[in-house]
């Protein structure tokens, strides 16, 4: 009952977002006051919908790759075989997170050239860190009694990982993915400075032509996407951790 109002609000925001992406012209009157008399109020240099989709696709691809690699690495360094890599992994994560996303992006350009690729690489590299950190934390702070019990019931190392350790670490890992996605959604806009097709194009077009309406619509679409995705992740995490009795 207490969740009803925020959820209705989210639904409304989602509906408005979809409406805006499909029929941006409907919103022209709202945006008109922000621009000079004859300037366009709705982004007209391409389809907002396709930019949004390609923005999401970029973020999704990068995050998916980052999740696979980060969780894989975290599993490795939390096994006895990989224990020697643990201290270094922790420091690398800490150091990596001090790298500004723009710097990662800019440094990727010399390696792979302009376009989607440097953006994907930057989002991937930057997205690795929070996921890796959380997966490492989640997998290395499991209650010892439970890990013991899993061994005691005769599970093999693989069964323990799949049936006990990963499910228990899942909420923490998801929190890492959520963080990573939120950062990536915003960072992807900067990708447009190196010619990636993202909503950053709308914002940059606005900055270049001094069109506040463009800046606003580009920024808001990204922000709304970020908030909705963030909330969706939080909801899943809540359900999972309530199940695991961690609340």
């Amino acid at each position, binding site marked *: 009952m207490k969740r009803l109002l925020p959820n209705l609000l989210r639904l409304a925001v989602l509906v408005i977002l979809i409406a805006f992406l499909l029929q941006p012209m409907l919103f022209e009157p709202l945006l008109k006051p922000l621009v000079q008399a004859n300037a366009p109020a709705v982004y007209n240099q391409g389809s907002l919908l396709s930019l949004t989709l390609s923005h999401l696709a970029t973020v999704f691809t990068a995050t998916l790759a980052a999740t696979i690699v980060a969780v894989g690495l975290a599993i490795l360094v939390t096994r006895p075989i990989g224990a020697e890599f643990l201290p270094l992994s922790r420091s690398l994560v800490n150091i990596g997170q001090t790298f500004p996303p723009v710097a990662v992006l800019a*440094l990727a350009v010399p390696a792979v050239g302009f376009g989607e690729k440097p953006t994907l690489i930057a989002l991937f590299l930057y997205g690795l860190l929070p996921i890796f950190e959380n997966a490492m934390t989640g997998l290395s702070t499991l209650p010892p009694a439970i890990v013991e019990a899993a061994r005691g019931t005769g599970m093999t190392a693989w069964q323990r990982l799949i049936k006990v350790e990963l499910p228990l670490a899942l909420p923490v890992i998801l929190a890492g993915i959520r963080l990573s996605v*939120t950062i990536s959604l915003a960072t992807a806009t900067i990708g447009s400075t190196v010619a990636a097709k993202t909503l950053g194009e709308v914002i940059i077009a606005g900055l270049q032509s001094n069109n*506040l309406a463009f800046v606003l619509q580009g920024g808001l679409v990204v922000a709304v996407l970020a908030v909705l995705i963030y909330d969706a992740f939080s909801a899943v995490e809540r359900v999972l951790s309530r199940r695991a009795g961690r609340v």
Partner: protein
Amino acid sequence: MRFRIDKLGVVIAALLAYGAFLAPFANFRANRIVPGEARSIIEALPAGLGAAFLAFAVVAVVLIVAKTPTLFRLVLGLVALLALAILIGLAAGHLTPPENTYARVSPASGFWLTSFAFALVTTDALARLKLSPLARVALLAAVAAAAAALLMSGVWDGLSILKEYGSRAETFWLEASRHVVLALGSLAAAVLVGLPLGILCHRVEALRAGVLNVLNIIQTIPSIALFGLLIAPLGWIALNVPGAAAIGIRGIGAAPAFVALFLYSLLPVVANTVVGLAGVPRDANDAARGIGMTDRQRLFGVELPLAFPVILTGIRIVLVQNIGLATIAALIGGGGFGVFVFQGIGQTAMDLVLLGAVPTVALAFAAAIVLDAATELSSNKPGRAA
């Protein structure tokens, strides 16, 4: 002593071997724009030096693969990094034809991989040594001093990034100071506003969720958009509020960047203040009340000192984040290292990108080390609950 293998060492040694023997050490370009030609370490260095370094690399591979004492690995890593730093400078001098000011020499993948390998050795050793906070800061200072000495000595003058610097030294320092002012100034403003706001949120529960939600949402607005959105209101203020323009408030330039960074900084400061204050043990508060402290005395004498390490963690997050985000300010004419990054991207001149990116990363990195040390020191003070 038996020869035991260090698993991590094997991975690092493989990187090192590939970087030293198979990948090009330096890149030579006849001028700033043309694509580069790779040069191996033997070609890149004056007679004998390249071979000497390769011999050193072989020894290093063995030493890294073997389980050697941690302190020894630290020294090995640091010495090798210093050697590499000097060698790349020498390579630049060696490869550039005399009197030629157009040619550009930059480090190539081999140099980066070898450096990365030794940096890993160093980092791993540092992680295992668990140095005290002060020792870490001292090490940082030593590394910074070494880098400064190398810069001053002119060893690196032949490198393309320093040639870019040479042709715009004045702008560089101007943008550097703007970058630092943006990052630190917005942090200071955020602390001035965020700390009281955090205390307020701690005391008044009704405010807490609302304030934190709004700040959370601000964080989700992409930085370039937030920068852009602030242009209009600040422009309006500059035009309509007397005196505003005089103190530097303008629609375009540093002011919107400053405000945007300030807004981004608020969340970590406020949230950590709230968390820190909430974590103050009940006993400490009760005891303070019990001996008759007023609310104000309790706040300054008990709660804030106890919450300080957590608040400091928030400040660390903000500072590192701001140093990175300040690069975006360049897109709206706010200056900072971003100027070089975006100019470089525009001209496809990667040396220029590096001229902006390298100092940004170095600054953020140094800030993180210093503030981590400060946080650790403040939470380790005797008599303070961990």
